[in-house]
């Protein structure tokens, strides 16, 4: 499938990327703006106003007052995303998250040959690395939050933040050049891993999502649970498979196993495989649907 075909077949998802950008990224941030309007908050919303990671940091760092304080809506949003993943799969990651969308879009737009792009075909290895990060993230949050090693460790959550980098670029794009004036080392490292290594030089452009996003990791676990309960998931029909491996090539999350089944903890229900091959279907219920 060439780039034009890919674009046409997945058009709703790519339109959804644009919608996600307008919903969460300033100067638009329409979703956050609407919530702020309802609760009477006069702050100017940015992508940072609904941080996808801080509530997770707060919980494991014991900062419960933040969850129930003025940033309650940020926590509600993150929990909402995780709970929705039980029913819809990690659809927020695959369809709306602007951080993942931008790196994936850049990866698709820049024609670097696949031989220069990293892809781990062993889904168990990808999964073990993804959850290694999650465990490390939780450990740092707890050690810093409970002051067990607060002199030796600092925040992973805020120091290495792709959302901030994206917001700064977007603000600059829409006229506020001061947003990209100051760069701290953590932001430079985030930029390198999010867009350059994880975006351009990882197949699918979702390196940040795979290895650096705790919300994505939790959403993956929720999806695994939801799939077992029979909620929305993508299934492989072996009888329709000719073993061409196209599915593995198009999956941005490296979620297709060697036997062409899907590793749920990685899958974001993006339907790229569904559109590339008839052997995949998005289904609901206990059995694979016929159509």
């Amino acid at each position, binding site marked *: 499938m060439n780039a034009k075909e890919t674009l046409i077949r997945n058009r709703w998802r790519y339109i959804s990327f644009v919608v996600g950008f307008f919903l969460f990224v300033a100067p638009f941030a329409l979703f956050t703006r609407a919530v702020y309007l309802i609760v009477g908050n006069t*702050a100017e919303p940015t992508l940072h106003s609904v941080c996808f990671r801080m509530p997770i940091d707060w919980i494991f760092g014991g900062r419960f007052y*933040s969850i129930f304080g*003025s940033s309650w809506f940020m926590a509600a949003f993150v929990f909402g995303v995780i709970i929705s993943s039980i029913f819809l799969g990690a659809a927020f990651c695959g369809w709306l998250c602007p951080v993942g969308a931008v790196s994936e879009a850049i990866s698709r737009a820049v024609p670097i040959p696949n031989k220069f792009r990293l892809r781990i075909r062993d889904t168990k290895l990808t999964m*073990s690395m993804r959850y290694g990060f999650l465990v490390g993230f939780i450990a740092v949050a707890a050690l810093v939050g409970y002051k067990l090693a607060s002199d030796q*460790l*600092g925040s992973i959550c805020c*120091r290495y933040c792709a959302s901030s980098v994206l917001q700064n670029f977007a603000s600059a794009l829409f006229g506020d050049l001061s947003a990209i*004036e100051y760069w*701290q080392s953590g932001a430079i490292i985030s930029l390198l891993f999010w867009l350059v290594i994880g975006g351009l030089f990882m197949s699918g452009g979702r390196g940040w999502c795979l290895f650096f996003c705790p919300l994505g990791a939790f959403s993956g676990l929720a999806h695994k649970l939801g799939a077992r309960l029979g909620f929305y998931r993508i299934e492989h029909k072996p009888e329709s498979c000719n073993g061409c491996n196209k599915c593995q090539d198009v999956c941005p999350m490296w979620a297709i196993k060697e036997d062409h089944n899907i590793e749920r903890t990685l899958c974001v229900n993006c339907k790229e495989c569904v559109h590339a091959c008839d052997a995949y279907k998005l289904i609901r219920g206990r059995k694979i649907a016929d159509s």
Partner: protein
Amino acid sequence: MKTKYILGFVLVIAITLSLGAYSATLGKSELVHFWVAVPAGNVTAPMVLRGAGPPISMSPIVIDLQSRGVLKNLLQPQLEGLSTHWIYNLGKKPVKVKLNLANVPPDIAVDWEVNSGFEFDAATHTFKTPLYPGGSVPNLGIDWVFHIPAYYMDEPVIYDGGLEVIDADTGAVLTFIPIKFVNGAASSSATQGGSCH
């Protein structure tokens, strides 16, 4: 076969912890985040202020530009920043908070980037809404970005001033947090790691 997965898992945990350790180093020297409370007087040493709200830790801020990360020193040595998300009133009466960076040399330009749930007058650096006892400025984010001319970069002390938190109605300085930018042999005891909100 299993060894590969365990190694991958442990390796990424180790990388994440290393990033946490690096973050602690950066937190003392790049975009240092600190807490502000009024009225605290002159913050000459690390202190915990208790009053109408939560206990707030404050200390003089000393930023050693030599301790910054390699990437920062390589790409943007002449820009350094400070940040706060927290201004609390631990006193007994409402205060209209005005901020001032004291003793900034005329050739060091400072950009104020402010986002706040209270209306902020950028010309006078004053919040128009009074801050009530026990309260904090909601959804606050202030970054101060210092543009340091090249000829300052070899000085042992580049900036020696501080943040004044002033009662806009009376002009009284309620809190003064000393801030110093130095070259070598010093460290800050402010919040580490670039914490937010």
